[in-house]
């Protein structure tokens, strides 16, 4: 079991034309059959380190390379990318761009075909079978959901039957439900097929549940590698590098349970750790902020339904008799699985889609009679992919596009936006060339620049690292003060717990829940039905039967204490 399959020794690397060493004296040993998570802050060299394993470095990126990498006994420096890629499969973070054939089967068979394997069809069939994709093998890539695309990308490298699989941020672009499914499949590959799996990951909850080991990178070097249990307990090391440890571990650190000297890292362990804890305000009336009934109604939808035709001319119901009222000063989270109808609902509100049936009112406008151009004066819609918001060649031009096209004077307001969203540094740059977090903040500012009454955002926190995500949540709180109401479609349950005042759950085109987040999380069947995975701290509260559930770590710490001490204080 413990024979090393990858040995990286004293590797340093500088990209061609780059001035800094991205890797510096990195050493790492990975054993056969390990499920290793590589963690580290932005720019710590995680992806670069992984590219030394499949030979892209130093053969494709011919920068300055020192040290040695041994993969399965082969010195990568003396080998070639084509030999190494049959031993090491690599799945990119933007896996969609890794799929280059029109159908699933063609794509999965592409690599074995290129390497001239006579039985390339069987190899592809095998990979599809292992990942449970056989039923979609004839589908076109563009018809697939995000989760299916990711599995196809994995199958595409698995078809070469490599001993090692490297997956860069498997869950960044997926909803939690699909993310878990990916990890379960990876676990199968590791346990039943003896693969060595390496993931670059910063969601420590997933690491705790699935990985066997964890390595921390810092400034181009491997700081340490431990088994998962030991690694995730070094929470000071993690926090310094903007990696947030599992919520239950953080809660346990502040709880200081004297009877346990090990911190829990999974829900299961935490339930044991906190077994004797209970809510100190149980039975007291819930501190529920009353829904603001007095504010004015901003949006009203009645009997709204929408149908669409598929490629085979079949009629699909996307929205099914929706009734909805949005009042001023609401912060609404719209949740549900992919395909539940969230985007269509938002597009209907923005006037992009005219619903097939039903009536609606937004501010002064009647939905079915108002053009998209008129509606966009009261409704702003920020797309999921911020790049699609950048239609000019600099952020400042993008911000003023709305004002300029209407000959409005808004310099002061725009300047205010730039300051409060910390965009000073990027104001003259093209939106495509700035970092992910900056892109999201810019897109949000562009949405606000039209001074809308209702602001809608599609997945504002997806694929952001922890630090950018925290900044984004802060920015969203600021944005709530600038507009009358905010509606966010999201898979990020932590965002729902920390930010929303109201949550709407959709499933198969219907609204199946509409109310307070704290109540939704307490209802298991709603979460199951809509494929939601509540934040760890909420799951823990549910396991401990706390009522109401704690939505954040601080909430948990403030209201939960050990049974023995209850009533003594």
């Amino acid at each position, binding site marked *: 079991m413990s024979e090393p399959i990858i040995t990286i020794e004293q590797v340093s690397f500088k990209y061609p034309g780059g001035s800094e060493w991205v890797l510096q004296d990195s050493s790492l040993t990975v054993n056969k059959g390990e499920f290793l998570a590589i963690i580290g802050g932005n720019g710590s060299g995680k992806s670069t380190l992984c590219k030394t394993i499949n030979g892209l470095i130093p053969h494709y990126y011919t920068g300055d390379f020192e040290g040695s990498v041994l993969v399965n006994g082969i010195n990568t420096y003396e080998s070639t990318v084509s030999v190494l890629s049959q031993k090491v499969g690599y799945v990119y973070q933007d896996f969609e761009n890794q799929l280059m054939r029109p159908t699933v089967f063609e794509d999965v068979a592409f690599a074995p075909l*290129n390497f*001239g394997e006579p039985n390339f069809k069987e190899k592809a069939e095998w990979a599809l079978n292992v990942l449970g994709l056989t039923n979609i093998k004839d589908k076109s890539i563009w018809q697939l959901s995000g989760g299916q695309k990711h599995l196809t990308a994995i199958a*595409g490298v698995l078809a070469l039957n490599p001993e090692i699989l490297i997956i860069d941020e498997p869950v960044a672009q997926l909803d939690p439900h699909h993310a878990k499914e990916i990890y379960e499949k990876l676990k199968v590959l590791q346990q039943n097929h003896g693969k060595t799996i390496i993931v670059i990951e910063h969601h420590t909850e997933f690491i705790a549940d699935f990985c066997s080991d964890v390595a921390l990178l810092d400034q181009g070097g491997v700081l340490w590698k431990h088994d998962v249990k030991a690694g995730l307990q070094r929470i000071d090391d993690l926090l310094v590098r903007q990696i947030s440890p599992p919520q239950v571990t953080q809660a346990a650190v502040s709880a200081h349970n004297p009877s346990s000297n090990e911190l829990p890292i999974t829900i299961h362990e935490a339930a044991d750790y906190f077994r004797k804890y209970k809510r100190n305000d149980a039975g007291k009336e819930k501190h529920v902020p009353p829904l603001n009934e007095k504010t004015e109604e901003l949006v009203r939808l009645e009997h709204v339904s929408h149908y669409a035709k598929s490629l085979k001319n079949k009629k699909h119901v996307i929205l099914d008799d929706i009734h909805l009222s949005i009042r001023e000063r609401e912060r609404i989270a719209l949740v549900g699985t992919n395909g539940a109808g969230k985007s269509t609902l938002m597009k209907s509100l923005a006037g*992009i889609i005219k619903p097939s049936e039903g009536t609606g009112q937004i501010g002064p406008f009647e939905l079915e009679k108002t053009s998209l151009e008129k509606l966009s004066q009261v409704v702003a819609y920020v797309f999921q992919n911020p790049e699609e*918001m950048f239609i000019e060649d600099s952020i400042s031009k993008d911000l003023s596009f709305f004002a300029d096209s209407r000959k409005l004077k808004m310099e002061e307001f725009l300047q205010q936006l730039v300051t409060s969203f910390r965009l000073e540094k990027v104001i003259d740059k093209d939106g495509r060339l700035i970092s992910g977090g900056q892109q999201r903040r810019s897109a949000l500012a562009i949405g606000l620049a039209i001074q809308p009454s209702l602001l809608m955002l599609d997945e504002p926190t997806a694929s952001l690292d922890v630090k950018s995500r925290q900044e984004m949540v802060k920015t969203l709180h600021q944005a709530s003060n600038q507009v009358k109401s905010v509606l966010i479609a999201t898979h990020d349950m932590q965002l729902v717990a920390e930010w929303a005042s109201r949550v709407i759950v959709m499933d198969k085109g219907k609204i199946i829940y509409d109310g307070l987040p704290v109540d939704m999380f307490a209802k298991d069947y709603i979460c199951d039905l809509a494929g939601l995975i509540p934040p760890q701290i909420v799951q823990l509260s549910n396991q401990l039967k706390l009522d109401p559930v704690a939505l954040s770590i601080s909430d948990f710490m403030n209201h939960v204490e050990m049974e023995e001490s209850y009533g003594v204080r």
Partner: protein
Amino acid sequence: MEFVSRLKKTYNLEWIKLELLKTAFGKKDSYMGRKDPRLIIAWYFIVSLLPWFTFNQTILAGLLLYTTVMSLVSRVSPLIITLLTIGVISELFYIIVLVLLFGGEWAAFSSLITFTMKITIMSIASIAAFASMDPEKLSDALLSFGVPPQFSFAVSYGYRMLPILLDEYQQIILSFRLRGKAPCNGGFFKWRTIYYYSKIVVKAFYPMMLNTAKKTRTTVEALEVKGFTYSLHNKEAKKLKLSHLKVSAQDHRFILLSFGILLVIYAAGKYYPL
């Protein structure tokens, strides 16, 4: 008004997108789609070159009828047919105007019609051949004709990118519309509105190209990892790739049938010239 709004609901940008995708990704089960792709390409070249060697209008009319039937058999999308019809009708219209304007007579009209027929046969033949062909088959057929692998790969990759480009383009046009301001007063024949949208349609190209270019960075790396470069220098890989191309009995029937039909058309042209 009711009619117009219903028309608007059925025939919108989404519909165009769907029709284009249907055309691009072919109907594998159609008559032409089941044939060996190399055969179809050969058929296309023969049928679209033949008109240029004759001025016999009977033959041209026959070829026109033949290609039209073939395109109907391969169930071409109504969008493509409409576009083509608009093209042909406006062409005819301008020929008539031209002839009337210069006081021409039947001879001038007739020779212009001949030219139009030739062009039309070519375009209908290409629709019949390529609209029913699976992109993979097209690219493999090209490869087997000795076209460089980079080019034949580019053809199939282009098809893969098509839906991505369309989506991206649609989103960016939306961005322009959501933040821009359409003219309130359309002006004579709504020319201001038309000008406004035409400008958007052109402007949206640049962000689309930039966004797409950025995405291809991963693709290039992945091509390397998936052995595409390796396969370029490997004869075995190419052979393997083309092993599924086989001429079957139904292909032989197709050759005979096409040959027969062309023979009949030429015979008719010889004995009954228009």
